[in-house]
Structures are given as structure tokens and as C-alpha cells.
């Protein structure tokens, strides 16, 4: 935790979400996909933590686990002092209001037969926000304005809006229940760059206006630098590096973070020549490599790496799961 930063609104400790691999007629459990394997996170109110990594690293499962859209096996998710994972399902409901999620695909997220006004008002009604339908309609109009849409269009259907507008609608729906934390799971990844810029700017404005905390799950490192205060990098179910955004981009400590940053092409014609620093493919979380999970691809691996599992060692303002960071201390 950086000195002077406000206390966390969301704190995740030891989150573990494994999925069973079932085989055969009797669907016997034949092993586990360790999608999320011991993750700690913390986000102060009004700040943004980016969770980055490549396909299958477990970043989306973290997001879904926080809302219990999938059930984690272990861990604690402290939201405003309450452990969401310790609650029984029926007690979870009132706390769900404080954490909302926006997904990548706004088309799949909206019911095509439901007017947009009703899609947004649905959650309000569930949580008893607004005394009657007329008041909720007024609130939907206000939300439309908040996400820079025309309030006279609230009675339209989703297909009458463009992709970018539909993502604004999904954001309005998430905001309708006045959450404190918004999980954005690849929320701008399906959008064209000119539209993505509109949505990223909107998210930044909303954070300044409403004091929302964001968990921004993405594979796009350019977006991370634009939006995030802190960054956590995931690899095969674990966080391998965590720290202040500027520091991570300026001075990445984990060899995987370095490989990831070196692989991002620049649009500056003077800076051509990305480096493929790592070969091979990401290992499966069903069979994570022994020791350090990155050792099979790491250009700096040495004899200790396949034998022993590294911890998250503190580096400066953050941490790195690498023996080199341990030795440097």
C-alpha cells in the first residue's frame, strides 16, 4: 500500500477458484483446472487496479469470483468490511448492490426483447431504488445523461443502438444500483479504437464524478497505462507482479512482465521492432509447471526455478514473484 492512499474498499485474500475436470460416464473428477490459485488484491475507493494477463491466465475468473458468479473454494473478498464469500447466498443479495460488472460483449449482455429503460430499471426495482415506475424512469433518464446518451431514447431496444452506445447502456445499468466497485471485464476490447477512446474517457469521468473503484480486467497494456493507478500481472492463476502503473511500465521486475511489455507493438515509426522474448505457449492451468510457473518460458530461469515455488517478494512499491527479486533484496 502506497503511503497516503485511502483504505481499500475492496480487499481480496487468498482467492482460489478451481474447476473440476470431469471424465467418463459417471463424471468422476479427474483433476482440477487451477484457474485462480491464491490471489490477493486491494483497491482503494476511487482508484483503478488493472488486472492484466493473456488468455487463460485466470483474470476473468477473478472478476467473476468476486461477484460469486462462479463459486471460489477458498479466500476472502472484503467489500466495505463484509466478507462476501462468508455470506450465505440469501444474505449475499443486499451486498451485491455495491459491486457490479460490465462485460466485453454488450450485445450478449442485453436482452434484445427488453426496452433499454426496463433493462436499466430492473436492478433498481430489485434493490428498492425509486418509489415508483415514474421515478425510476426519471432516474434512467438521468443515467442516460450521465453516460452521454440522449435521454429521449430510453424507450428504444438494444438493436437500435451502435456497439459503443450499447456499452454505455451496460455501464448505465451497472451504475443504476449505485455500486462502489465496478469490475470491467475486457469492457472496451471489442470496440473499434475511435469508440474505445470514447468509452475510456467516459469511465475516467465517471470515476472522478462518483468516486468509483475499478477492477479493470484487460489484455491491452496500452489501455492499462491510460486508466490504471496500479497493475497486477497474472500468469497461470497467480499474480506474478504488482505495483504502481508508472513503475511497472518504466521498470518491470518480473521476467514475464518484461516479456509482455516488450511484445506490445508501438505506433511510433521510430520505434519498430518488438521482441519475442519468450517462446512457446502459455502452460495449461490444469497442469501448471513445477516450481515457478513461468520457468518453462523464462529467459532468466536457473536451477532453483523448477524446484521451488517463488513467493511474492516485495520490490519498491509492489511485489514480484521471482527469485531474482528475492536475491536483490
Amino acid at each position, binding site marked *: 500500500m502506497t503511503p497516503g492512499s485511502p483504505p481499500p474498499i475492496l480487499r481480496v485474500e487468498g482467492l482460489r477458484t478451481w474447476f473440476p475436470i470431469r471424465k467418463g460416464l459417471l463424471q468422476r473428477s479427474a483433476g482440477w483446472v487451477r484457474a485462480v490459485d491464491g490471489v490477493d488484491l486491494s483497491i482503494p475507493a476511487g482508484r483503478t487496479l488493472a488486472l492484466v494477463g*493473456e*488468455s487463460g491466465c485466470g483474470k476473468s475468473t477473478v472478476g467473476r469470483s468476486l461477484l460469486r458468479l462462479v463459486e471460489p473454494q477458498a479466500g476472502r473478498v472484503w467489500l466495505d468490511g463484509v466478507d462476501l464469500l462468508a455470506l450465505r447466498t440469501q444474505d449475499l443479495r443486499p451486498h451485491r448492490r455495491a459491486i457490479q460488472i460490465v462485460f466485453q460483449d454488450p450485445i450478449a449482455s442485453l436482452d434484445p426483447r427488453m426496452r433499454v429503460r426496463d433493462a436499466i430499471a430492473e436492478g433498481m426495482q430489485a434493490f428498492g431504488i425509486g418509489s415508483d415506475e415514474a421515478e425510476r424512469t426519471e432516474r434512467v433518464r438521468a443515467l442516460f445523461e450521465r453516460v452521454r446518451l440522449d435521454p429521449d431514447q430510453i424507450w428504444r431496444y438494444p438493436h437500435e443502438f*451502435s456497439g*459503443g*452506445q450499447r456499452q454505455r447502456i451496460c455501464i448505465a445499468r451497472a451504475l443504476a444500483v449505485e455500486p462502489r466497485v465496478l469490475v470491467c471485464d475486457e469492457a472496451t476490447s471489442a470496440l*473499434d*479504437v*475511435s*469508440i*474505445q*477512446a*470514447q468509452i*475510456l*474517457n467516459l469511465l*475516467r469521468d465517471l470515476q472522478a464524478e462518483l468516486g468509483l473503484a475499478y477492477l479493470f480486467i484487460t*489484455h*491491452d*497494456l*496500452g*489501455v492499462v*497505462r*491510460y*486508466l490504471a493507478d496500479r497493475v497486477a500481472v497474472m500468469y497461470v492463476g497467480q499474480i506474478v507482479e504488482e505495483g504502481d502503473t*508508472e513503475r511497472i*511500465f518504466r521498470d518491470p521486475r518480473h521476467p514475464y512482465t518484461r*516479456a*509482455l*511489455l*516488450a*511484445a*506490445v*507493438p*508501438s*505506433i*511510433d*515509426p*521510430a*520505434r*519498430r*521492432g*518488438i*521482441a*519475442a*522474448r*519468450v*517462446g512457446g*505457449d*502459455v502452460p495449461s492451468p490444469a497442469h501448471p509447471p513445477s516450481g515457478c510457473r513461468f520457468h518453462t518460458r523464462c529467459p532468466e530461469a536457473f536451477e532453483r526455478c523448477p524446484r521451488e515455488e517463488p513467493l511474492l517478494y516485495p520490490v519498491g512499491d509492489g511485489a514480484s514473484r521471482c527469485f531474482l527479486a528475492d536475491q536483490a533484496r
Partner: protein
Amino acid sequence: MSEPVLSVRDLRTTFPLGGEPVPVVDGVGFEVASGEVLALVGESGCGKSVTALSILRLVPRPGRVAAGHLRLCGRDVLSLPVREMRRVRGADAAMIFQEPMTSLNPVVSVGAQVVEAIRLHERVSASQARRRTIELFESVRIPDPAERVDSYPHQLSGGLKQRVMIAMALALRPRLLVADEPTTALDVTIQAQILELLRELQRELGTAILLITHDLGVVNELADRIAVMYAGRIVEEGTREEILARARHPYTQGLLRAVPSLGRRGERLAEIPGVVPSPIEWSRGCPFRTRCPRVLPACAETMPAPTRLSTTHASRCHAVAAEVST
């Protein structure tokens, strides 16, 4: 100068929308020289993929190439009989797509698919073709090529599948490779491997590449020249440096400023207001005028003609034309 590998003039490809044939590609023209990489860039629906499909006569029905001249390796593509065209695909020009999984047959081993492609075009024995396939796998850096030829697509990762696709595309040594978003479905560390491979192969074999992508970073890595498309037309064209460092068209400039890049911290991204118009809404005048910060009265009247900014750089914009003439 020798004839370009590919030359496209006044290409117009239409799809019926609401009963009327609507141009999705409208008057596109460009050339790709031997050994050159030309990137066709733009956002969804700008017509870049339809342009690529038009070149190989693969436009899905009911779409059709309504007008234009296409010369590929000295042959008039649009007047070739279907059988001849089949020979052109693969031998003169080959294509790789974004999704290797949908381009590979899931029930045939990847090696057998490459063997089949070779034997469709050349009289070689099965064992010769298999040997060549193993060599090809080696040249696209597939580890353990002699074992991998017998793998099925689902046994390979996304990166390896894309390597198989590249091997298949290069099997007959085409002079032109059309690569439609070849790395878009891949993770960034795998993308870096594939871009490195394409760059090396291009250098070794001298294959010309028509790269279709929305990703300006990928363009910077591979392209020699760039053509920017908007609403079915090429709005600006130039060398890599001219477009990425000295773009003059307001759309290209807006696109470049909207990219959140690693080098810039925190500042607000430049937005291009509004949305891309759908082909039905394209009308007279410049299609970008509804979103353009530099719109002039002339923009509603006519599509601007290209303004020459250098021997290689041209921009289709009334504001740029006015600037240059004063």
C-alpha cells in the same frame, strides 16, 4: 520498373441492402510491388476485408465485384474462368485469416491438409509432398515438425495453428500473401512470435504481403506502405513514416490519437465523435464529414480527389487540398 504483383483500380464491390446493391468498397485502387508489404487499415466495416476477398474472388454471395480492374501477377483476375482462378489461389496468391481454427478441417491431420494443398497444384508423390510439408513446418519454426504433421488441429495451440496456416499458404511459393488480421486472435507474446516469423519469411522469400488489420501497432511492425480506409474508400496513402508520423487526413490523425499507447501517461485520449456511418447512409461528398473537425462546405458536395503530398503520400481531403494550394 517491373510490373507490380498486384494492381487494383476502381474496385467497387456491392452487397444488396434493402433490395438495392450498396457499394461496400467504392472506387478503391492501389498497387503492391514485388516483395513489398502494404497494409490496408481501418475500423470495422470500412471495407478492408471485402477488398481482400474481392482480390481472390472470394466475396460471399450475394455480394459481388461490380466494377474495377484487378491484375495479379500479370493476369486479369476478373476475367479468368473459375478453374483458372482456382489455380491462381494458392500458386500466385494465398490467404491467411484471423481464425486458424475455422480454416482448418478438424478431422484431418494438419500435415495431410498441407499435403493435399500441394498435390492439388503439383504432380508430386504423397511421400514427396509429406517431406515438403515437414520442411515447411520447420521453416515456420514448428517444434518437432516430423511429429507435428500427424497432429489434429485441436491438439495445437492458437499460435501453432496460425503457423500451420502460414506453412500452408506458403506451400506453393505464392508471390502475394493476403493476411487478414493474422495475429488479432492471438495473445501478445504469441503475436510477437508470429510477427517475427512473418518478417523473416518475407525477407527470405521476397513474398509481397497485403496486410489487412485494424491494429496500427502491427502495421508499424510489418508494413512498408499504408493505405487507410474509411467507409469503403482509401482516404490516405503513404509510406509507414508518412502515415504514422506525418498523417494529414483528419481521420488518420484522429485514429492515431485515439490509440492508448504505452509511451503516454494518463492524458485524455482524443475521441473521434459519433460512429462510422453504415453503407446505406453513405452519400455524396466525403463520408467522414459527419465526424470531421475540419469540415468545409465542399465536403457535402463532392468526394475529394487525392491531394499529392509527396511522390508516395496522398490524402483525399478538401481541407488538406485547400491548405496545400495556398
